[in-house]
């Protein structure tokens, strides 16, 4: 036998159809009371039993068994003929390849003829959503009042594509996604009959991956069984699916918590070299981080469905992250998961997401994090020491390589300049992110120093909100200043990194290149000052060449 398992185990009786009790019961009652409709519409996701139920219905209405309750008995000549696919009176039509009105017309012509051997002629029109509009319309009259010996069963995965005029002429049955538990029970039964040994964990993974479709689940079991192992365990299933073991995920999360990007990337590539399926891995990682997030925000471990052995480890890991970190990481990974769908960049989206997740942290000044932590949730974080220690280590080297060395040259009074930049920033931010701008207004500028712009907020809520949109603030700052600048959020009582900064003006904050001896570095040009000195104008001249004519500057 080379049948796929899902064909071999197609349900043959109403009882066999898993998870669609509401449909099976209704149809059996209709049979018992001899109240069979003339047109049915079966809808529901793939692999939930629509075509199978249609065939069972065809058998049941035609079965020769004496007792109605026994139908279909799968033993009488009619049932056998249907099971072997050779009953003349069961007409299965593939609506997807016979879409035209002519196909429907030829069908209608034959409808009038009496059945050749069975009681009813059953027309099963599969994938009916693919019929053309005119084909649907041609069907309307026949569907409303077919000859007494005809039953129509329309089946589709996409009921929204069916015209209302068709819908109102049919008895509609919605097939539901099958629950994970029901799938794994059914798989267990199939495995038993096939003589396969499958561990409950393996069944669980298969059932979950099938997302409610029995055909997917059985296909998957089939695929795993094709390896020819006598026992099918978790590991084998993971291999086939390209999934990573729970332990590997946990270790990866540890690496993330450690905060060393090189370590994280190395681990990622180790996994890639082992041949994992990246999108599966991203999903698994998101699942794990979601658990940590739940543990992090809610103190109730019952929120997550984990055995005790894993729970302790998860709680320990949860304590090593802050909730915003987890949120940010999950968001970045979700985007990466989307980006993986177009294969242009390969593994790159995942790498970038991980680096982003790690660098979010580097953006906050050292020493600031613990304060925020204590304020936000003092109770939920029994282990707070491992976190702040490793993080700051990696942040400074990266920043210093990045930023331009600040020349030490005194300039205009810092306060006026700060206020100017702040005012401009608020104006620019309105265009970039209006919501964020509103948040920013409740803060005040604290200082500019070495490529960093410090903003002080009284309330933690504002801090968190602005921190979440820090990229936009950076964007705004670089627009205002004409060079990359990084916003750093401070709490009410946090000191600036160097005490002297607030009073000592820092020339790096001047918007013009350091080499330029510009006496007026105010980025908000005084209308009186010559426009030619404006950094934007100068940059344009540098970049594009040309001469500035006085006339073009007048008003």
């Amino acid at each position, binding site marked *: 036998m*080379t049948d*796929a398992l899902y*064909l071999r185990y197609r349900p043959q009786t109403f009882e066999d159809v898993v998870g669609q009790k509401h449909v099976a019961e209704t149809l059996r009652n209709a049979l018992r009371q001899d109240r069979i409709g003339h047109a049915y519409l079966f809808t529901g*996701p*793939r*692999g939930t039993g629509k075509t199978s139920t249609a065939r069972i219905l065809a058998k049941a209405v035609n079965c020769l068994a004496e007792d109605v309750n026994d139908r279909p008995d799968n033993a009488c000549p009619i049932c056998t003929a249907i099971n072997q696919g050779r009953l003349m009176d069961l007409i299965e039509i*593939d609506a*997807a*390849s016979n879409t035209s009105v002519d196909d429907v017309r030829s069908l209608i012509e034959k409808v009038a003829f009496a059945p050749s051997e069975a009681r009813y002629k059953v027309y099963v029109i*599969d*994938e009916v959503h*693919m019929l053309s509009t005119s084909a649907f319309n041609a069907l309307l009259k026949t569907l409303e009042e077919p000859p007494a010996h005809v039953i129509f069963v329309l089946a589709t*995965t996409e009921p929204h594509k069916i015209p209302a005029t068709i819908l109102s002429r049919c008895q509609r049955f919605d097939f539901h996604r099958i629950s994970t538990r029901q799938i794994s029970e059914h798989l267990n039964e199939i495995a038993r009959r096939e003589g396969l040994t499958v561990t409950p964990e393996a069944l669980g993974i298969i059932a979950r991956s099938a997302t409610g*479709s029995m*055909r*997917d689940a059985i*296909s998957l079991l*089939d*695929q795993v069984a*094709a*390896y*020819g192992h006598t026992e099918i365990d978790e590991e084998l299933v993971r291999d086939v*699916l*390209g999934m990573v073991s729970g332990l590997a995920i946990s270790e990866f999360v540890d690496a993330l918590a450690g905060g*060393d*990007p*090189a370590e994280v*990337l*190395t681990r990622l*590539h180790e996994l*890639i*070299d*082992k*041949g*994992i*399926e*990246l999108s599966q891995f991203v999903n698994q990682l998101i699942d794990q981080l979601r658990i940590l997030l739940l543990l992090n925000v809610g103190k109730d471990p019952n929120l997550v469905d984990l055995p005790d052995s894993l729970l302790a480890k998860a709680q320990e890991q949860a304590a090593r992250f802050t909730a915003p970190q987890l949120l940010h990481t999950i968001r970045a990974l979700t985007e990466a998961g989307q*980006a993986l*769908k*177009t*294969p*242009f*960049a*390969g593994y*790159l*989206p995942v*790498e*970038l997401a991980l*680096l*982003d997740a790690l*660098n979010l942290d580097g953006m906050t000044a050292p020493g600031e994090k613990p304060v925020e932590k204590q304020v936000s949730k003092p109770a939920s974080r029994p282990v707070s020491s491992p976190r702040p220690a490793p993080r700051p280590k990696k942040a400074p080297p*990266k920043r210093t*390589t*990045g*930023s331009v060395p600040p020349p030490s040259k005194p300039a205009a009074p810092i306060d006026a300049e700060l206020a100017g930049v702040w005012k401009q920033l608020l104006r620019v931010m309105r265009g970039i992110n209006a919501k964020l701008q509103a948040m920013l207004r409740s803060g005040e500028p604290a200082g500019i120093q070495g490529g960093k712009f410090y903003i002080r907020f009284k309330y933690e809520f504002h801090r968190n909100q602005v921190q979440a949109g820090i990229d936009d603030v*950076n964007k705004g700052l670089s627009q205002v200043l004409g060079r*990359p600048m*990084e916003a750093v959020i401070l709490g009410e009582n946090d000191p600036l990194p160097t005490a002297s900064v607030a009073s000592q003006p820092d020339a790096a904050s001047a918007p013009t290149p350091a080499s330029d001896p510009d006496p007026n570095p105010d980025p908000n040009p005084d209308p009186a000052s010559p426009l030619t000195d404006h950094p934007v104008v100068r940059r344009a001249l*540098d970049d*594009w060449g040309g001469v500035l004519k006085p006339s073009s500057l007048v008003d």
Partner: protein
Amino acid sequence: MTDDFRIRVYGHAWAQDLLRRALQHGATRHAYLFAGPEHIGKTTLARAFAQALTCENLAGEDGLGACGRCRSCRLAAEGMHPDHRLFAPAGNQLRIDQIREVVREAALSPVESRYKVFIITEFERANVNAANALLKTLEEPSATTRIILVSHQPSGLLDTIISRCQLLRMRPLPESEVVRALQERLGLEEPDARRLARLSNGRIGRAFSLAEDPESWQSYNQRIQEMQAILAYSPAQRIAYAQALEKHKQLEIILQEWLLWWRDVLVIQNRGQALIVNQDHLDALTDLARSIPGPQIRRFVDAIMTTAAYLRKNVNRQLAMEALLLKAPHRE
């Protein structure tokens, strides 16, 4: 060696294993979907599987088990087998006429072998009608029919198609496999092979085309030089360069090269020197990593990816490239 007509598949050992077992036990399925990134050997595996399905001896223990000597194997290797049918998108789309041809022929008996094998490549290019037209055949074809769908974008396929197939998710090859293949097939030296393997990112087809075309390798190095020069360009110069570049036929490949290059810079900034792709440019990369701030590079990488997405949507190539180059980091 000369009379060995086996179609050789590099990597994907697990998939070859699985298919060989199925063949040996006479338990092959009626429909397969080989999914995975481009240029990793999906169609090659499909052809090798087809060869094994129709092989007269099926004796081999390695690969897929085709003997590679019988008449059938020879015909398969030459692409002349009467029972092998390969369908590729005609133009931009896989047409419903082509699918109808599959449906019709799938109902017929094989000409001379046990099976009639249909390989349909780039199945994501089948439009909704064409894909739907295959559903019934795909679920219950005749006992002597085998259908292999190949796609690099399984997410673009109908769920109803995927759930009817045995899905083999193929992945890019590990670097070591690509290196071995390049050494075996083309006799490359180890360092060359390794460099190509990294550049190709596990896509063996791409590695072979790079290796077989020394010009593409040369022009790669040249483009990398140019890209570094751009950093010092003024906007006017950048736009001029964009205009020259826009005429390049394989813009997407150039963007991929840039992407990998800047990724390397980012990786170095995060102290991942061992993981970089362009190992032979380590000095230049390190230099860039020191002088350009990480966030700027990060933004440029994003811009490259966005531009690639735009290009796939047929935007004005010149405008897209100009905008991208203006966003490139600036360095004196």
